[in-house]
């Protein structure tokens, strides 16, 4: 997914660069007789209309794919409670007590089961980001004090997954992490 996003961006980057270079060169070749664009108002109108349609299509395709709607009509077969605290994550099968935050030593999930992560924080804002074996970010939500963010996900591949903190939380933010396995 990230790779196709990068390709899309590089494509758009190339198009913009070509347009700006072309327009610049057209002005260098221009003489006093040149009158610029033939009918700028009409071209402007078409340009805007096309842009509007493209963005409209993009929005209607992507908005339903937002994480808030993931498996919304299914019941999760597994709930994992997550509490973040400078600078570690506590993962548990049961609700976590803020006064005594202890969790499981190891969390094992099943391939293709619907898991709901209930993510909160006991101090500052943190991020809860799941990375696969290949080091690719596959899902995330924020860990915010006083709130519980629910992230639903099905893991289609077994293996070891890492959790990284993706919201800056202080001097050990870069080493705040955890892990779990999918069987």
């Amino acid at each position, binding site marked *: 997914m990230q790779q196709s996003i990068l390709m*899309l961006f590089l494509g758009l980057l190339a198009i913009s660069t070509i347009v700006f270079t072309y327009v610049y060169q057209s002005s260098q070749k221009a003489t006093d007789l040149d009158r610029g664009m033939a009918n700028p108002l009409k071209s*402007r109108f078409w340009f805007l209309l096309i842009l509007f349609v493209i963005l409209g299509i993009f929005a209607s395709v992507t908005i339903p794919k*937002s*994480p808030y709607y993931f498996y919304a009509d299914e019941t999760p077969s597994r709930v994992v409670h997550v509490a973040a605290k400078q600078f570690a994550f506590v993962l548990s099968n049961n609700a976590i007590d803020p006064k005594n935050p202890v969790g499981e030593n190891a969390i094992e999930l099943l391939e293709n089961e619907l898991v709901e992560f209930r993510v909160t924080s006991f101090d500052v804002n943190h991020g809860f980001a799941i990375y696969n074996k290949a080091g690719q970010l596959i899902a995330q939500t924020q860990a915010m004090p006083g709130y519980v*963010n629910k992230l639903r996900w099905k893991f289609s591949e077994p293996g070891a997954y890492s959790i990284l903190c993706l919201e800056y939380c*202080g001097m050990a933010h870069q*080493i705040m992490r955890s892990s779990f396995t999918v069987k």
Partner: protein
Amino acid sequence: METLKLRKITSVWIIIVLTLFVVAIVLGILMRLNQGEIIQQSPITFYGNMTTHGLTMIGIWFVAGMAAVNYLLERYVKTSYAANLFALVLTVIGVLMLWCSTFIGEFHAGWTFLYPLPFKIMWAEWATPLFLSSLGVLGLGWLVWSISLMAQILKKYSISQAFAWQHFHKNPKVETPPFILITMITLIGVIACLIAAVILLILFFIEYFSTGSFVNDALLMKNLTYFFGHTIANEMLYLGLAVIYELFAEVSGRPKWHTTWYVALAWNLSLIFILTAFFHHLYMDFVQPEGLQIIGQIASYLASLPAAGVTVFSILVAVYRNKINWSLTNLLFFIGVAGWVIGGLGAVIDATISNNFILHNTLWVPAHFHTYNAMGNVLFSLAFFHWFSNQYYHHKERQNTLKLSILLIGGAGFLLAFYIGGAESIPRRYSTYPSDLPMGATLASIAALFASLYLIAILIFFFNISKKCLKILSSSPQSS
């Protein structure tokens, strides 16, 4: 017309901005070197530098835009020298306080100082109140300056004229110059976000002094933080655009731009989109009401329409097959608009909730905002600085191609490393990268190299422009 006093204070602004810019770039390069494991800094030093870099950059490019707008506004209305000076003094004091809190007090909560991080003291006790007060000082100076500029506009133009509403009718009797319209729209955004910052600071201080009896709501504070942070970062770009509307045609030897109904409509609409797009910073907070999330995506998309369809298109129309007197000034404007467009494309991609799910807080974020800052807004301001100082001390422009090439190559390489890092899921704001993400360090070293090229180009601009500004400062009324 402009007075000698205004000319001098504008020169002072320019020298301050460029000097702080060089320092802030050096901090940026140090960060990339540390992430590239070429140097070893403690995480505290790294995050302190990150905080200083971020806030200094936001501050200087905001005031650079304001100083330019103030200078050009004098063509239409009388502006207040006292307000300008007040903002200058408070900016200097604010920056000194900020640097004390980060360099000496080791405060390092990031430029967004997201609640409640500033209260989890991992630095000198006094650094948190000093940091928050430095923001208060900066905010006060800027608020007074913005309100003063807006008041001067409203003395000459009625509210509906300042918004160019008369252009929605056929054959309006008076024309609102585009510069006035954009400045007005931008100042409203600026004032709105500075007021949000004041509320945010008050909430911080109430909790700070209540010693536990009052606790803020983290979600509300996050909304306020990003309403402020996102809006100010965007409005400073719009200040740059106002300058382009005023100067691009003039320096290019083309007829002045006029306000038409679609220019008026576009800018009025952007005000709404700009003030609601910030919701895209909270996409990953699933507890935020869903409606606001959708508004975030739609407003972010819509914000690109007036920008692309009116401003960018106008620049392209102005240049396409027209004879232009190209100089460093309009070249910088033109390239800057390209940089702004490219950064904007990266932003629209990230403002898509389903993409944000895997890009949020990766290097994709600094990638796109550095694009429209380092290759967009900075160039707008450099163009103004160059044009401004050249009015009084004109030197023959030499080696423009060389200067611009170094800037472009350096900037492009530095930015590309961020984009690739984002696509490689490398987190932002990591002092060093974990060993299972080895690309992070490699990309950072490459970026440090290219950023040094960018710095070289900036140093050349810095010397050329500051030299002329110093001459302006020492000039007496007779000699001008």
